[in-house]
């Protein structure tokens, strides 16, 4: 007798495709949040598969802090052009210029908190009723409590103590005017699942994820890349290091890891043996125990 079993990757893929199709069916104007990182690239890849041979029925939006790695922006434009989708950029710089937000100052200044304002403005200006994001529950403890369909009030806020129960595979996307949803199709994927899937599907990635030589310096034990937007203290000396990035965020808050992994196979081997979480290299999460929870309550995805 034939065994009707799916591998874990096929089951996760099937679940994500189901969620993406639910979004297209239940919402009028959905947007896919695309940062150029591996998780949003995986979401874009899944969206292509979900609607093939038709085009992806979502607009793409990049919340651009202005502090991206140049490699990320280059890849974003190349990849989305190849997918043939429409890109909107929600610019943090514009929000600063318009006086909507004030920038942090100092050496550890980050535009991370400001992203929320640009994101909410982008959602409001374009009247998006659902924003799809590549957040995963294994990333962070507040995210472990997220739904696939995360209801947000008319200020875009998350109320973690009063979430809609989510049963079976039935997703309730009903809402009142002005309210919206954040949708997380890859909620159940781990960092390892993402890498295995990228390998299995042969998905293209920005070069930053692979081992390369880069001018870096050390701050509070974190390896930081030098760059236009990364102010350095006089005592922070620059050195050429062999590194790669496990996550890609702003240059100002994304740390690198020492690594020789220059292929997907080697990255998987490295991820399998690593003893530190992915977001351990992100200084934005280290600010307090509830940093992510607080940002999410304000409307972050």
């Amino acid at each position, binding site marked *: 007798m034939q065994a009707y079993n799916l591998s874990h*990757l096929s089951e*996760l*893929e099937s*679940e994500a495709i189901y969620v993406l199709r639910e979004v297209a069916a239940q919402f009028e104007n959905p947007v896919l949040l695309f940062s150029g990182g591996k998780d949003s690239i995986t979401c874009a890849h899944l969206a292509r598969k979900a609607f093939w041979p038709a085009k992806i029925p979502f607009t793409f939006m990049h919340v651009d802090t202005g502090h991206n790695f140049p490699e990320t922006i280059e890849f974003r434009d190349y990849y989305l052009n190849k997918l043939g989708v429409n890109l909107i950029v929600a610019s943090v710089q514009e929000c600063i210029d318009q006086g909507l937000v004030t920038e942090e100052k100092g050496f550890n200044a980050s535009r991370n908190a400001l992203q929320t304002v640009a994101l909410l403005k982008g959602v409001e200006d374009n009247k998006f009723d659902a924003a799809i994001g590549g957040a995963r*529950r294994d990333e962070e403890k507040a995210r*472990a409590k997220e739904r696939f369909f995360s209801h947000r009030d008319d200020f875009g806020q998350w109320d973690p103590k009063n979430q809609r129960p989510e049963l079976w595979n039935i997703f*309730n996307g009903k809402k009142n005017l002005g309210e919206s949803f954040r949708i997380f199709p890859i909620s159940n994927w781990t960092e390892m699942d993402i890498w295995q899937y990228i390998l299995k599907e042969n998905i293209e990635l920005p070069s930053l994820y692979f081992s390369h030589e880069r001018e870096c310096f050390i701050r509070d034990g974190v390896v930081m890349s030098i760059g236009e937007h990364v102010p350095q203290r006089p005592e922070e000396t620059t050195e050429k290091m062999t590194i790669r990035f496990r996550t890609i965020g702003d240059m100002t808050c994304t740390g690198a890891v020492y690594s020789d992994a220059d292929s997907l196979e080697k990255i998987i081997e490295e991820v399998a043996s690593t003893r*530190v979480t992915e977001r351990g290299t992100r200084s934005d999460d280290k600010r307090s*125990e509830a940093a992510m929870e607080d940002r999410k309550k304000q409307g972050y995805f």
Partner: protein
Amino acid sequence: MSKDPYLDMELLRFSTAGSVDDGKSTLIGRMLYDSKSIFEDQYEAIEKTSKKKGDEQVNLALLTDGLRAEREQGITIDVAYRYFATPKRKFIIADTPGHIQYTRNMVTGASTSNLSIILVDARKGIIEQTYRHTFISSLLGIPHVVFCINKMDLVDYDEKVFQQIKKDIEAFSSKLNVKDIHFIPISALNGDNVVNKSTKMDWYQGGTLLYLLENIHIGSDHNHIDCRFPVQYVIRPQSAEFPDYRGYAGRIAGGVFKPGDEVAALPSGFTSKIKSIDTADGELKEAFAPQSVTITLEDEIDISRGDMLVRVNNQPKINQDIDMMVCWMSDKPLIKGGKYALIHTTNEARCIIKDVKYKVNINTLHREEEDKNIGMNDIGRISIRTTKPLFFDSYQKNRNTGSLILIDEGTFETVGACMIID
């Protein structure tokens, strides 16, 4: 290292239920720690917190705290999902709070699980909660239930204690619909029989909890007999390359579909043959639950979201009057005669609550025919009439086509989780 083993693991979803002090968080922490799924920065964080609180040992239970309010109050508020993997399987844990007011969370966590772990304190034996958790596992149709008799260290690892609790559980669970039951004596605190075999209970010949989780047969947990394909979305590219393509996208809810199969579309009843089962990776020779695919038919018939493709000679029930068990999830009690929106598979309708037959006392499992008020966290049997016919199976036969949710028409909150009865 070969890449292949990683690409071909099975996925097991399980839920854990337990009360405040019976060691659920410790058990999960222990599983994650002993299977080496805890990262150094996570461990350092809980080490720091443990010291701050004055704990003697590193408190593994802290690993499962998520929200600020949970850390402050030392309780779990909402279902949290956790992940770990061994070379054999990847695991998704729905970690559900066990307090009395959180039945709704337990039901939520159980709704997607293949297996449920129920913790019993060896010193206390069966308590009300044990009935409640077992009943919910059975109600939600979880195929495998594992009773972990915990804190064996506090009863001197005594076999008699374990055997007595096992006997008591077997006695009451025989009345419930639980297909596959297991019992394991453990100490989550010391790690006995969780990941590593205990050296203190030679009388126990069975495997450890992790061994069971890695090896339990889950291949038959989906229905592969009765073909059900709820249409989710119609794919029409209208492009130069695919000018006339019309595919029905959805996730198979039951049975095995093959090209050439004769199918009927509900509710119209029109029949056609499956022309192809498409995915972005190419056509499939067969498709089964829970695969997401796109089906094309030989004939052009009118099919849209909410319709269902089934085998001509194996059809679900089609009715507007439906009996079901409901778990209520809202502060506002269920209103007899009230109207609600509902979602069943990809279909939406409205319904009226015609009757409340009884409420279940989930601590004694007795039916209460006097008090029929269904409030938050209550479970009862109700009859509804829908605005249009639904195509459904009993929940026992198929968890996908036998489940539906009720929605408040004012707030759009999900207020009821329902399991259809034959």
